[in-house]
């Protein structure tokens, strides 16, 4: 059985018990269906990461302004003097 709690921590979640039970059952069913992938021989096959044959897009190293600081801060839950306000991050 999948240890849901490990992946909750990775995803920064803490599930209520009713949700944990539903998600555990669903994740278990989905994972069991993934076993069918093993029957496909993929030796020597390169992963297909992107569907387009694209190169990294570059532009001139020139500063452009598409948004102001006030616009950026306008959606912040808490901010002060142009800084995002958060709990202490270092002990």
């Amino acid at each position: 059985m999948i240890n849901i709690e490990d992946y909750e921590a990775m995803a920064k979640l803490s599930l209520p018990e009713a949700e944990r039970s539903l998600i555990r059952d669903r994740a278990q069913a989905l994972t069991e269906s993934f076993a069918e992938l093993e029957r496909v021989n993929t030796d020597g096959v390169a992963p297909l990461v992107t569907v387009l044959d694209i190169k990294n897009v570059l532009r001139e190293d020139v500063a452009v302004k598409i948004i102001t600081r006030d616009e950026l801060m306008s959606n912040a839950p808490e901010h002060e003097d142009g800084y995002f306000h958060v709990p202490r991050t270092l002990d």
Partner: protein
Amino acid sequence: MDYFITDYKTGNASAVALEDSIMQKNRPVTAGSKILENFISPIDATVVTRLQNGNFPIAGKLKMDEFGIPPVFADLPDELSSAVRIVADNKAAFSLCNDLFGKYRRQAPEFGCCYIHPGYGTVSRFGLIPLASSMDQIGVVCKNLRDGFELLSVIAGNDVNDGAMFPDKAYVYKRADKKPGVCVPGAALSRASERSRESLKSFASGFNPVSAELPYFDLYKQLMCILSCAEISNNINRYDGVKFGYRAPGYKGINDMYVKTRTEGFGVETKLAAIMGAMVLSKDQYVPYYEKAMKIRRLIKDSLRFDEYDIIALPCEIEGGGYENLGLFALPALLGLPSVSFPYNGGGIQLIANVRNENLLLTAWEECVA
């Protein structure tokens, strides 16, 4: 039916409605999630700018599943989407939405509408709240494909703000000179309902259908689940209550703020996708799941025979419930292929063409419907 997220709506039946994952400056954009309930967009999406430049009125922002993840992912009951219903009810001429999991392609024909899913790299994703970045593409709900492709030509074209696009600055969609060759894979046909099967056979009979299979068809749903959840979990990492969006009250410390915010802000389908994504990308599961899925994705690409046929025709529903039908609509997302769906003879038809061959989809539809 209430289609919109707010009172902001024009009531203009010739307007274009936007799924609420498409940003419109100074308007709320929530992607159907509590975690963005108070977010006001600072920008216009490129598709919005192009609609406005083309003098298309915007009808409003449509209610949607949270981040576009359908309830069938968690094996929960599904609902009719606002994006399809508003066009079916003639309250808007078109809807724009991101149909990653095929919900709109499946529902549109049931209600007398069509859906166009452009090839990846055709329509700018700038200003679209991302779900799975290698698969996201804004498509069109419309009453008929001719009008839908005309609208698509307004919003499609290269955008410097989206780094994964074809270079074409504009697209003109028109009937091709040749009649497309059509393939109807037996694996999908045999699992369609009787109504869908008859509809598909009737459609294909007008095109001298080619016999060909989709060798990995039964694995499409697993690939779609693994790859989309991996990308979704990555994309929703940004929702942490720091710079924007919902921040939970009553936290103790930074990590508690993250956990409370995301636990309270996300619905169950999004949490499932986040946990599945964390799992398939974790150290011990990455190779057997994520890397394996990407390798099979290449095998699928190599298995298609667009030298023998031009279009793959599929039903819009097969037996087996929501998870099985996830696989039915996966191919365009997995390989960036253009597709359409439309009603035909009592059933829904889904057509898929090779990259940059949207014209053949329009041609096939005009051959049988127009």
